[in-house]
Structure formats: structure tokens, C-alpha cells
């Protein structure tokens, strides 16, 4: 069961572990909106060490406003960036 729903506000965890991580540095700590629930996939963090039997993880596509990602963003206020993020990298954000 996906923990988040389309339209939920989510924050990307600001963690910096070593290993093979698919959450880009620039998006860690940023808040966006779940654009879609993709589906479950093998966890790259485990697959990268040859562990093919590790539990699958839910993948989401999260949409961020560019001006929320880059404080000095030059472009239209409607510009966005979509990033695919696995569930364990996301946390709830209180409405507001």
C-alpha cells in the first residue's frame, strides 16, 4: 500500500549516506507535491550491492516548484521539476 497519495505534500529527507542513492543531492530537504504513484520497484540502494531479494519499494513522481528548489531561480513562477523518489526518502508535511 502506498503511504502517500497523489496531491499530498511531501518533503524529501535531507540525508547523505554513502552508497548508491537515486535521490539527487539538490532535491534533499525540498518540499513538493506527489504527481503520481508509479509502482513498486526493486530498491537500487540494495540492488547496487547485489541484493536482488530485498523488499521492493514504492516509487513516486514528485513535482517541485523551481523557485522552491533554487532560491535564485531565473524563470517563470510556474516552472516545475519532476523527480522520481522512493517512498523511504519521503516524509509527510503538515498542510499549510
Amino acid at each position: 500500500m502506498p503511504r502517500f497519495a497523489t496531491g499530498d505534500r511531501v518533503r524529501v529527507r535531507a540525508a547523505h549516506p554513502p552508497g548508491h542513492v537515486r535521490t539527487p543531492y539538490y532535491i534533499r530537504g525540498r518540499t513538493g507535491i506527489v504527481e503520481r504513484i508509479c509502482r513498486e520497484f526493486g530498491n537500487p540502494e540494495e540492488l547496487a550491492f547485489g541484493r536482488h531479494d530485498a523488499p521492493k519499494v514504492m516509487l513516486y513522481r514528485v513535482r517541485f516548484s523551481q523557485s522552491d528548489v533554487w532560491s535564485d531561480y531565473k524563470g517563470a513562477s510556474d516552472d516545475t521539476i519532476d523527480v522520481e523518489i522512493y517512498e523511504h526518502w519521503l516524509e509527510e508535511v503538515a498542510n499549510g
Partner: protein
Amino acid sequence: MADRGHDHVHASPVDEDSPHSYHQTLEVAVRELLIEKGVIDADEVRAAVEEMDARTPARGARVVARAWTDPDFRARLLADAPAACRELDIDVSPAQLTVTENTEDVHNVIVCTLCSCYPRPLLGLPPSWYKSASYRSRAVREPRAVLQEFGLDLPETVAVRVHDSTADLRYIVLPQRPEGTDTFSEDDLAALVTRDCLIGVAVPRVTRTVAEPASP
């Protein structure tokens, strides 16, 4: 050694005549060891390269042209791109292909900042600029400046939507059908759709008028 002679059959740049770099030597050594051990065989390597060469942006252009001429197909493509591509006998597995549609108000552009993930089943191998540090680093932060370097100057009224292919999805852009193409055949339309249009660093332009009915 038997497989090396065949390399010259291909039109691709041949590296056998120039001194090998260390990594070129490594490729030969690893490949030959894998073949000697029976892990892979030389025919498979050749077949894989041939399959690679068969994948060109013409596949992506065909998909777009069909979407422009068949609204039901377009809807199916946006909902489930792998299934829609199968209708055209294009197998995009194992990619989780996702189509992002340009509209009057939104322009999509694709990048992979961490690596160089690319919709290879529809476009083939990525161009060198797509793999470059400049494109990977800048496309997410200053997409409009990057698009300008490709000759695409978008008004502020059009939102730029960047897609960073970080995980398991692969994207292509469904561009807008250009004005003045009502009489174009599907093949004429496909000819307007370049690789760069499918990545989102260009938009299709009518560069020529289709000659007065060339065929009856």
C-alpha cells in the same frame, strides 16, 4: 580473434587501426575472457550492437506522428506508453516509458542528472551532449538558458517542466503538432520530429512545404 575481422563490416567508426587506449584494451581483454569462459559469445555481442544500431529516433517520431493523427492513440499513449508502443510493434521493455505532453502552456524537457538515463528503445543511444556534465548539471537549474543554447527561446507564459530521470521511469516528450500541417501524411509528420524534439530541447518546425502532391 575470429570476431575481430567482422568489426570492419560495420560502418561505425573503427578503432582497430589506432593505438588502443588503456580502456579500449580493457574492453578487448574483458570481452575475450568472457567469450573464452563461455559467459557470452561473440555472435551475441554482434547482435546486441546491431540491435543498438537499429534503434533510432525514427521510432520515437513514428509514435509522435501516430499520436498527432489519432486522438485515441494519443490518449492510450499518455495513459500507458509501453502498451501503445506495442500497437506499433515497438517494444520499449524494460523501460517504464512515460510520455509528457507539450501544450500551449507547458513545455517539457528531459535530463538525467545522476547518470545519463535515456529512452533508448525509442531514441537509441544518447547524444554526447545529453551525457555531458554541462547538460546534466545545468538543465535542472537554468533550463531556459540551456534551451536558448539549443535555439529555443520560450516565453514566460509557457511553463518549463523539467523531468529528472532519477529512477525507473524513462520519458519522451510529445511535442505540439506544428501549424500548417493539416495536409501532411503520417510519414510527412514523422519527418518533422527530430530526436531533440523528443528530448524537449527543440520543437518541430515546418522547414519545407510538402511539395504539391508528389504522389496521386
